[in-house]
Structure formats: structure tokens, C-alpha cells
């Protein structure tokens, strides 16, 4: 199908984009890579009256290390992060997650900030952001605010972003010495939405395990260093707390089993 008609604006700067967003009101959508939004428009699941295309805004197109973060601007594509030669050293968890994200052709145009703003509960980039305790920078005419990933994701496709705010940047914390990372997921076919995805961060004094695709948002648990049967028991509790539901992709029981097995395996193989 084809999208319903809309007004189209292509601002030249982030400032123009946020002032346009404030003017356009509740019915405006930001268009960046379009790899979620255009599908939704083509299927007419959404019919916004205004699209604000930020894909060519030069001051939003950057990927750089800043302090202890890898900062990714709203117009930077997933491909531009994935093909960064230093990514494995900078954010190893992201380097492990990228091959699971949809397909090469989608990552070429899709943006990192767009995936975070879309907040699909099975998406890999929000999951990695939560596991690493990353941050989201929101910008509007009122100024900027920085929101922790744990506070940003609020439910199925729901975030802490207000209607007049642009997800201007996401910040993935850089790898730390003595910390090990692992990402894995299960989906029906390669590139499909995850039935269950896990991200493990193993520190000398504790473990963080984040799970996507099971609850209505990515969820994380932290434990002080556990192993053996104690760790299995903790992951089992976590699996039950996620409130898995049956749907046409998988049963709740299968999802809990995936959390237990993928979760434990990720912790064990974290590198």
C-alpha cells in the first residue's frame, strides 16, 4: 500500500527541526532512516499530517567518542556505527548485537536513535542501551534533558519523550577493563524480530542481564556475583517476573525457557 498524504519538511539544522516539531503539534512525526516509520505509513497503521525529515541534518549526523560514551546523533545510520572499525573495542556489546538487527539493507538506512525512539520491545539497540546503562538526550525548544535508558523505555512503543522533543543523541558507555559482554537472541529466521534477546554485562563484582522480546519493554536485573545453581535460580525468578505471554510467535513457557538458557549461556560466554 501507499502512505496517506502528508506535508513534508526537510530542516537544515537540529534547531530548525525542533522548532518545526513544536509548531506542527501532536500529529507530526520525525522521519530519520524510515525503516520502521515508512513501513508503518505504507501499511497505513499511522497517518501523520507532517513528516519532519532529519536524515540530512549535518549537525545530527555524527558518531564519536565523548568522555566515557560513544555518542550517536539522530541522523547517524546503524550501518555507520556497525562498520566503524573501532566499534569492537569501543562498545563490544553493540558489535555483537548488530548482526542480529534486521538485515544489511535495513541497517544501511535505519538510524540508531530511530530504533531507540521507536522502542519496539524486541529491538536490539534499546536492549543494549539498557544493559549498558546508557543515556538518551532529548531536545526541544525548551532545552535539552538527559534521560537514563532505565527511565526512557516505558512500555510497548512508549517512551519518556514528550511530543515536542527530538531524540537528539544516544550515548552507549564505552567498554571498561575487567568487564565482559555478550549478546544473543532467538528468532524464527535470521533478521526477524527477536522472540527473546539477551544482553549480559559481567563485572568483577556483579552481573547485569537484560532481556528483550518477552515483556512490553526491555528489562534488566543486576545481581552481585552469583554462580552455579544460585545464578540459575536467580535467572529463573527473572524469567517468571517478565510476565511472558503466549502469542503466535512463541508460548510463554518457551519464552521463559529461552530466558533461562540464553541468559545463562550469555553470562557464561561473556567476553
Amino acid at each position: 500500500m501507499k502512505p496517506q498524504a502528508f506535508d513534508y519538511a526537510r530542516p537544515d539544522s537540529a534547531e530548525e527541526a525542533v522548532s518545526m516539531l513544536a509548531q506542527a503539534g501532536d500529529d507530526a512525526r520525525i522521519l530519520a532512516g524510515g525503516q520502521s516509520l515508512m513501513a508503518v505509513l505504507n501499511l497505513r497503521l499511522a497517518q501523520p499530517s507532517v513528516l519532519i525529515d532529519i536524515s540530512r541534518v549535518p549537525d545530527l549526523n555524527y558518531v564519536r567518542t565523548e568522555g566515557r560514551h560513544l555518542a550517536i546523533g539522530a541522523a547517524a545510520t546503524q550501518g555507520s556505527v556497525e562498520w566503524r572499525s573501532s566499534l569492537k573495542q569501543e562498545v563490544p556489546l553493540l558489535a555483537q548485537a548488530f548482526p542480529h538487527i534486521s538485515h544489511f539493507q535495513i541497517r544501511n538506512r535505519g538510524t540508531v536513535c530511530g530504533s531507540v525512539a521507536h522502542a519496539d520491545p524486541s529491538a536490539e539497540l534499546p536492549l543494549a542501551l539498557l544493559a549498558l546503562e546508557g543515556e538518551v538526550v532529548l531536545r526541544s525548544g525548551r532545552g535539552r534533558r538527559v534521560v537514563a535508558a532505565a527511565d526512557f523505555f516505558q512500555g510497548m512503543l512508549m517512551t519518556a519523550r514528550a511530543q515536542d522533543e527530538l531524540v537528539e543523541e544516544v550515548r552507549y558507555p564505552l567498554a571498561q577493563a575487567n568487564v565482559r559482554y555478550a549478546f544473543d537472541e532467538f528468532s524464527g529466521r535470521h533478521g526477524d524480530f527477536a522472540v527473546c534477546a539477551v544482553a549480559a554485562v559481567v563485572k568483577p563484582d556483579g552481573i547485569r542481564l537484560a532481556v528483550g522480546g518477552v515483556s512490553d519493554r526491555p528489562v534488566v536485573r543486576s545481581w552481585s556475583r552469583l554462580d552455579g545453581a544460585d545464578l540459575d535460580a536467580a535467572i529463573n525468578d527473572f524469567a517468571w517476573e517478565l510476565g511472558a505471554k503466549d502469542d503466535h510467535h512463541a508460548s510463554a513457557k518457551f519464552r521463559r525457557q529461552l530466558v533461562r538458557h540464553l541468559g545463562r549461556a550469555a553470562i557464561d560466554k561473556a567476553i
Partner: protein
Amino acid sequence: MKTYRKDDVVRIQLVLNGQQRSGTCESRTLLSDFLRHELGATGTHVGCEHGVCGACTVNIDGVAGRSCMTLAVQAEGCEVDTVEGLNKDVEGLSDLQQAFRRNHALQCGFCTAGILMSCTDYLQRNPDPTEHEVREMLSGHLCRCTGYTNIVKAVLETAAERLGRPHGAALAPDTAGHAGTGPLEQARLVTA
């Protein structure tokens, strides 16, 4: 700032396969439809229109992407390459196209235009891919005729040729990512 109202009919310009072209569209016109209906470049095929099948893949400023999930106005001023331009610098078919023909890597041909464009971008970035990497790249395309084996062969053969390696050595065993005893399989067994 550039703005187009929803009922405007606008003229946009882009470079299609090296040639400056222009045509009219609305803000909501998809690039795939603009190429086919306005510019007459029907080599690019349209399948699912939500990014799953890969038939409409074109290269925008050298980067492979879905033309059904790109607005025509987003490609304004860009260099768009489609299957029609693959052999613009050679007599006959390009090396990639010849490899597809040699290996019977297409049957009905509906998916082929998109696959060729993906391969064109991918082989430039990764000139010596493993079979697993080629299959990962091809996962963004649906082909219902070939079963993919011959497509994989054609892509690996093209890479080998460009690197000056003999044919036939291309399909080396590569099992990365296909382990059969990982936690997933175990989980499946337990819940079965």
C-alpha cells in the same frame, strides 16, 4: 528548510545511473514508484512495500537500501543506482551479472534486480566475504525459485574473480553461526 505541502506536485531532480533526470511527484510518493512510473526505470521491482522482500533495493549515494521505504523527495539530488546501470561501464553484462547467469542464480528474476544492487554495495565494502557473511547479507532478500545456493555461489565466484583467485575454490566449508548444539537448540529440545 525545504517544505512540500501534501497536495503539491513537485519536480525533483536526481542522478539515475549517472544521468541527470527529473520528474514530478507528491511528498508521499515512494522512490520505487517514482523510478518506475515517472522515470520509466522498471528494472527495480516492487514486492511487499514494507521492507521485507528486498526486491526494490537500489543504491542511494552508493549505499544499498529499500526504495519502497524511501520517499522520492528524500532522494532529491542524490545519486541513485539501479540494475539498469550495472553494465554502464562494460560491454554486455557486468562480472556479477555474468556470474549469476553462469551459476543459474536466477529463475523468474523478480528478486534479482534487488539482490544485484545489494551485492554491488556489499562486495565493495567486503571484497572477500565468507559464505556465512554472504548468506547474512542475502537474508534481506526473498527468492522463491533458487533456494539461494546458486546465488551464494555466484556472489562468492564474483569475489574470487575480482581478487584473481581461481573459480571453484569459492565454496569453502563455513559453519560459523550454524552450531547445532547451542543453547537455542537445547531450549527447543527441553520445551518440545
